[in-house]
């Protein structure tokens, strides 16, 4: 492949190699973690019973592994897209990848060998007070895992931020501040693209997130070493959710960046940085840090003002996402020449899922609703919708697009059908979470009452449909991967 393409610019072959590795590894881990998720649903359905200790180990690995996998998947795609217009360092991204995976290794050791089963939320002081289910070393291994994953992500963010800032000659220019604060009258001649804006925003919030995680880990390690007797449970919870909730939200923004990149290819329309886009993404820098407070609505000792911030932040962050990204995407599709292909189908499904999951989240971020939904399967429903029918759908669509583009391949009608099957299977699977949550079925329960078995049983049927779709797409991409790898050399 010699000609410049939508992603390949003749000089970014090295970056595309790293990006492919990120995406393929992220996708494979996503599939493996999905299998663990299936085991959990089979257990809930009473079809395949897991011992309770193994259920929580698997649940912890599934939760933290899925976050890491989906994030890596999006990071890879986003780096590929960004590398066409700014100079990223493949060396730094390889380093970030190995550090990230070192972290993943610690998490695997902590859960599968050490028996750690405190959930991805690692709510203090449970990791250190398991009642004999796991030892202190397993908790430390889990925290080390988080530390390395966070450092890997930080390196990735700093690389992006540096590249964008260098290209535009300053942070303010990389965030289009002159254009933004002049109401669009000045600074419009050298604006960052929407993808570059997303890069700067995610990098800034990514760095803040990692700092929050580091601030949490210091007392955690000090506590384990006996240097600090007690760590405040509410303080730990706040920092944990500032880190964890924000990280998973940034995953969605990275994946949405892929929509900015490839939807124009399929609709033959341009996505440009206009004033609303600049405003929305700059607002996101602050707004994305606020919704995490909704995880603490039932912690009545938390200051009431922070509960209100949680409501306003949760509602507020939805507005730029919906009004700019989702409405903008729909506008690109509306009465366009859109080509139906696997990536455009997955993006369309992702836009549907992101919005539907967002509705579930907004309802739950209303305090009286959260009173009866907190820690039920409703919560699981909304974030699985974000991921499966949002972030992962976008990343999968982009990976399929990139592999086909680099290997110069065409897709078949079967693969388009597989993409729709992915959507159908996902929707049914996710709806069962919402329905069971509405019926007060708890999340993070190893054992289900007989009355609760119906929901996971129906969900398993939809998982099988989803699996068929994924299998077809996976096999197709697998057959083209070698060609795509060669395609990165130009």
């Amino acid at each position, binding site marked *: 492949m010699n000609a410049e393409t939508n992603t390949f610019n003749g000089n970014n072959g090295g970056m595309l190699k790293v990006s492919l590795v990120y995406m393929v590894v992220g996708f494979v881990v996503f599939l493996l973690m999905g299998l663990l998720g299936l085991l959990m649903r089979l257990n809930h359905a009473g079809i395949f019973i897991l011992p309770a200790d193994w259920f929580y180990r698997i649940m912890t690995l599934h939760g933290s592994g899925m976050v890491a996998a989906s994030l890596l998947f999006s990071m890879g795609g986003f780096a590929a897209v960004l590398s066409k217009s700014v100079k990223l360092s493949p060396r730094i991204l390889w380093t970030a990848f190995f550090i990230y995976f070192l972290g993943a290794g610690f998490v695997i050791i902590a859960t599968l060998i050490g028996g750690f*089963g405190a959930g991805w939320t690692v709510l203090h002081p449970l990791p250190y007070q398991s009642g004999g289910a796991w030892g202190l070393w397993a908790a430390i291994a889990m925290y080390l895992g988080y530390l390395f994953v966070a450092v890997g992500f930080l390196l990735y963010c700093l690389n992006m931020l540096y590249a964008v800032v260098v290209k535009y000659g300053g942070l303010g220019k990389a965030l289009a501040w002159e254009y933004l604060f002049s109401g669009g009258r000045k600074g419009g001649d050298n604006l960052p693209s929407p993808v570059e804006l997303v890069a700067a925003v995610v990098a800034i919030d990514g760095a803040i997130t990692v700092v929050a995680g580091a601030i949490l880990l210091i007392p955690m390690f000090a506590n384990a070493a006996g240097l600090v007797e007690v760590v405040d449970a509410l303080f730990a919870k706040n920092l944990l959710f500032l880190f964890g909730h924000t990280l998973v939200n940034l995953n969605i923004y990275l994946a949405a960046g892929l929509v900015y990149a490839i939807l124009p290819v399929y609709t033959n329309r341009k996505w440009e940085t206009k004033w609303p886009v600049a405003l929305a993404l700059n607002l996101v820098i602050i707004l994305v840090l606020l919704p995490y407070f909704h995880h603490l609505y039932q912690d009545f000792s938390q200051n009431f003002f922070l509960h209100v911030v949680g409501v306003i932040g949760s509602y507020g962050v939805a507005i730029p996402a919906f009004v700019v990204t989702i409405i903008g995407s729909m506008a690109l599709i*509306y009465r366009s020449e859109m080509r139906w292909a696997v990536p455009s189908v997955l993006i369309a499904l992702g836009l549907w899922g992101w919005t539907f999951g967002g509705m579930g989240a907004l309802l739950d971020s209303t305090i009286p609703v959260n*009173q009866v939904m907190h820690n039920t399967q409703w919560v699981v429903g909304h974030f699985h919708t974000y991921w499966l029918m949002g972030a992962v759908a976008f990343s999968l669509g982009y990976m399929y697009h990139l592999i086909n583009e680099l290997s110069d391949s065409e897709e078949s009608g079967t693969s388009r059908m597989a993409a729709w099957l992915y959507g159908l299977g996902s929707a049914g699977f996710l709806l069962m979470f919402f329905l069971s949550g509405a019926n007060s079925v708890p999340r993070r329960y*190893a054992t289900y009452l007989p009355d609760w078995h119906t929901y996971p049983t129906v969900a398993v049927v939809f998982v099988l449909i989803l699996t068929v779709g994924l299998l077809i797409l996976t096999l197709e991409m697998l057959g083209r991967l070698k060609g795509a790898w060669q395609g990165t050399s130009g």
Partner: protein
Amino acid sequence: MDGMLIFWILIVLGVIWTVIWLKVLWSKGDVVPYTDIAPKVSRLRKQLTYSLMVVGIVAIALAWQSMPYAGFRTGVLGEPQQTIPVTGHQWYWTFGEENNPVAPEIAVGVPVAFDVTSADVNHGFVIYSPEGRIVTQTQSMPGYTNRLIYSFSESGTYTIRCLELCGVPHDVMTTQLVVK
């Protein structure tokens, strides 16, 4: 707040969204230049932004009276007539003071204050109705006491479940509360 009512709200919103989404997807054959669409999108964005802000303010206003926090519940239900200390332990609940546990007797229609804390890790103090639906909840946290005020409208046996992962036997951390 009933969980199924919230579910149906989600379904109605989801159906409306799906119809809009399908309409946009099916419009693709009827091609017009983007320059024709862009001004309409710009207007739509403004209208949506203001509309969503209004919806958000209305939602907060409607939610205000149903806040679960002690000051709000007292305002609606009146001062609690009974106070029950509750402590979560790995993996059981105790009512009353640590050195003087009691089996609480609760009457229908009487505001009760549960002062909920934890002796070890975080737990979730969640009250399920005799029909198996969550009626109210708060977190049981080490180092903090959360005051949950509630007035039971029906007699029967309520189940307390822990909904915050607290260790391997977390899902068997249940007890019962009889309301007469």
